[in-house]
């Protein structure tokens, strides 16, 4: 039941200016995804209005478009794509991190390292992968060295996939 002042306001004022309960107020719809992509030493995108962002979540790749449901995800080493309308996607290889999408379509992506795919050296990826694979075989099961080798293997394999190599 509205208060007397609110009921009076409804008669006198145009509907849009009438006071309503806070739960009835329409939330302003965002017009684009506002992307904040940062690494510790650089803010790659800061408040950029983008069409959509494709994020490599640990449980699967997903895309964020405007007015997406709020979402929090851990990222796995993989490719993050930023799509602008009518332009080629900007691709970054991220080493992992987190991506948070808020109700107002602001998307914060934070990662320890994010590089453009052109900056990845294919021969280094192949040799680092092979070195990690032998380190994995040489390490004792369940040790930190084996876990580190596994991380190197996982990241190099993902980088290989991103630039078009297939590493076994």
């Amino acid at each position: 039941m509205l208060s007397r002042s609110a009921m009076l306001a409804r008669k006198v004022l145009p509907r849009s200016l009438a006071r309503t309960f806070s739960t009835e107020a329409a939330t302003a719809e965002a017009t684009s995804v506002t992307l904040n992509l940062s690494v510790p030493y650089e803010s790659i995108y800061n408040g950029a209005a983008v069409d959509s962002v494709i994020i490599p979540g640990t449980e699967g790749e997903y895309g964020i478009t405007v007015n997406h449901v709020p979402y929090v995800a851990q990222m796995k080493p993989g490719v993050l794509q930023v799509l602008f309308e009518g332009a080629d996607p900007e691709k970054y290889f991220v080493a992992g991190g987190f991506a948070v999408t808020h109700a107002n379509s602001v998307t914060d992506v934070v990662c320890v390292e994010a590089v453009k795919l052109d900056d990845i050296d294919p021969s280094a990826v192949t040799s680092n992968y092979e070195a990690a694979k032998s380190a994995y075989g040489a390490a004792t099961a369940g040790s930190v060295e084996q876990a580190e080798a596994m991380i190197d293997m996982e990241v190099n394999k993902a980088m290989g996939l991103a630039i078009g190599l297939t590493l076994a």
Partner: protein
Amino acid sequence: MTAPATSFWRIAGMTYLQYANRAAGSVRAALKEPLKSKLAAEGQFSYKASVWEGGVQGPKVEITSLEQAGKAV
């Protein structure tokens, strides 16, 4: 075969920060030259820390890795 309840790195005793920074180091190790040298120092850090006991500051120890940082100095 069900998936393990937690990540392989957690089982091996690593923390998330160690995992994330190791993965970032792997990415840096596979970069092309001008960027590789530019980012080479990113994973490094150092600071001095000391433990206070009974109102007395203990000796300062230089911390240069996450493994060291995780210990109570």
